[in-house]
Each structure stands twice: as C-alpha cells, then as structure tokens.
C-alpha cells in the first residue's frame, strides 16, 4: 500500500516539471539579484550568506508545499485516497517525498551560493556545516507544510490557511537554523544544542501532523 502511495507522489511530482523549472529559475533570479546588488559593492560575509540560504529554503518550501497539495485538493482524489489509506501513512508519504524534493532543490541552491558568493568556499568543512543543519530544518518544514496543507482541505479558507500559519510557525525553525550555522561558521565546531533544537522542531511538527490528521477529515 505504502509503495503505491510513494509511487503516486513521485508521479505527481514528475508531472510538475514546469513548476520545478519555474522554481529553479526563480531561485537563480533571486540569488543573481543579491549577487549583483550586494556582492559587487562589497563581498557578503558568511553570516549574510547563511541568512540568504535560509530565506531561499523558506521560499522553496512555501512554493513546493503549495504545489504538491494543489492537485489533491482540486481533484477530490484526496477524499478517495483517505477511504482506503490510514491518514498517518498518507501524511508520512507526502512529508517524505516533499523532504526529498526540497533536499535536491536545496543542493542546487547550495551550488548556486558557492558560485555567486566568494566568501563561501567550496570545501568539505563548509559543505558539512551547510548540510548538518539544513537537513533537520527541511524535515521540520516538510512536516509542518504537509500538516497545514491537510488542515487547509478542511477549512473554508482553503489555501489562505497555508501562508497565514506557515510563516509564523516556520520562523522558529529558520531562526534556530540560522543561529546554529552562524555558531558553526564562527567557532568552527558543531553546536549540539542547536542540532537538538532543530530535531525537536521536526519531532514537534511530526507529532502535530499525526495528532491533527483528524482535522483534515471532512
């Protein structure tokens, strides 16, 4: 059953090629504007680049979450799927696929950051620092996004719910992620407490999604 669920999620993403292409174009334009307006007048320091990266991650998560849940809502297929599949499996499959998708687009984001900004050196230590925190951060955003999108099915506000709740609930994750990376790049050591905070957010939003799945029912 889970196999068919995952296959369907990947097929839906596969059909959204145009959307993904638009997303990559948006990402390139976003970073190019920063590169042209700031990098040319004085090199951006690592802290600013970290902030830029998390801004990019939020933007990607926001657009992708809206995109992957659109068809479920519009076609009524979500209601049918729920008849045969336990809602927690549906939640986990969608979160997993969203996480994978975000992860791959974020690798592209990282490559662009290395390309556009000189103070970010393409070194193994740097790469480790970049991946270490954005993995739990992305996991949190995936769980949160799918939770909110399932809630939006059941409300009269529909997709308005997503930005209204996604923005305030993402901010703690973004702040924790940025602070953790700043500490890593300034001191050069892994801050365990920051990592725990980010994973705690993942667990919190996973639990929230599992507990609130009944809200997503009609």
């Amino acid at each position: 059953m889970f196999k068919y669920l995952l296959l369907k999620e990947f097929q839906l993403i596969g059909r959204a090629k145009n959307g993904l292409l638009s997303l990559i174009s948006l990402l390139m334009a976003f970073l190019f504007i920063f590169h042209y307006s700031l990098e040319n007048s004085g090199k951006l320091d690592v802290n600013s680049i970290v902030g830029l990266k998390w801004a990019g991650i939020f933007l990607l998560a926001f657009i992708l979450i809206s995109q992957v849940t659109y068809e479920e809502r519009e076609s009524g297929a979500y209601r049918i799927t729920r008849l045969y599949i336990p809602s927690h499996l549906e939640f986990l499959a969608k979160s997993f696929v969203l996480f994978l998708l975000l992860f791959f687009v974020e690798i592209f984001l990282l490559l662009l950051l290395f390309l556009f900004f000189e103070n970010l050196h393409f070194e193994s230590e740097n790469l480790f620092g970049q991946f270490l925190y954005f993995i739990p951060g992305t996991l949190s955003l995936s769980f949160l996004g799918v939770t909110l999108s399932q809630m939006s099915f059941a409300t009269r506000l529909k997709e308005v719910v997503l930005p209204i709740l996604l923005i305030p609930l993402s901010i703690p994750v973004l702040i924790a992620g940025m602070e953790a990376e700043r500490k890593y790049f300034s001191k050069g050591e892994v801050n365990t407490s920051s990592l725990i905070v980010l994973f705690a957010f993942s667990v919190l939003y996973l639990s929230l999604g599992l507990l609130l799945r009944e809200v997503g029912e009609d």
Partner: protein
Amino acid sequence: MNTSILSCKNLSYTIGYKKIFKNISFEIFASDLTLLTGENGSGKTSLLKLILQSTRKKEFSWDKKLLADKEQNLISYLGHENGLYSSLSLRENLTFFNGILKNPMPEAKINQLLEIFQLTKRLEDPVSTFSEGMKKKSGIIRALLARPALLLLDEPLNGLDINSTQAFLKILYTDFAHTSILLVAHEIDKISPFVTRRLHIYKGELNHV
C-alpha cells in the same frame, strides 16, 4: 427481507448556522439500490459525505461481519469531482487506486470495463485531456474498482451519453447486483426500473418514499 448493512440513527448536521438535517434515521440494506432524491441544496451530497465518515461517527453502525471482513472494502464513492489525479494518466490513476484497495480488481476485469466505456485507447493520456463525459466514465471505473459493500454514487449519469448510460446501468444491474448502492440522481425515469428503495430529503427531513 434483505439484511441491514448500515444503519443511521438521529443524525443531525449543520453547516454554519444552516441546519441541513434534523435527527434523520435510515438503513441501507444488502443488495438494494436505494435512490436518494431531493431539491438542489437539500443535503443529498452532504449525506453521502457523512456516510463516507460513517466508521468514525457514533450515529452510524455497520454490520459487524462486514467490518471484520479483511477482504471487503466497505465504501466506494463517486462524487461531483471524479476523484482522479488530473495530471496522471488513466492507467496511473487506476494502478494507484486499485493498488491501495484491500481486494484489488483483477486486471482482466479492469480491461473489460475500459472496453465497455471505450477508454482503452486513452489509457496512457493524462486525465486532464479528457472530455467531461470521459472523466465521468473514468471516475465510474475508479469507483467500481473497490467492489465495495456500499457504493455511493452522486449524480453518476451527468455528462454520460446514451450508450454509456445504458452500459453503466447494465453493469450495476449485473456485475454489482449484490452490492448495496445509494445513488443520487435527477433522471428518475432512467433509474427507476432498477430502484428497490427510495429516500427523499425535504426541509432537513428524510422520508422513505
């Protein structure tokens, strides 16, 4: 006398301030084709959607044997939306919806339904490229895959041509003769030869006609 597979007692339902049902009670019997009628906005679709949640609602009680049967899908539903992923092809949709069922329909039977509804040649096309009638026929096949204990059909004849309507009714009358069906339709003359019971919603009350 057929046995009851689902009974509903004292169900009330409101949307905002509007009261849709006031303490309605009814039963669905095995192998019956029950026609649900009522004016536009009387709550027919709402009632079907409430039945979709019947396993979680205290007002409903299912036949215990059906609930315990590990091979039997309880409900299938065709609503105003066809419940298909429009960017996926018909084959991908059917593979997915058949794959998540307790007792999937054999491929030969699916192919037979596709032949009857003349959709075989469009199997690889995205559902979004289909006409309204074709989407409806695809939705019907999707709903039939489950071979459920209770088949809920909300205006399934809308958008179907004469041949497809006849083919669909024939399938219901032959292959699904032992399935309980609750059907909402305004084309009463087309359905009436097959109907065994009729329920009518009027001003929040459900009458057995």
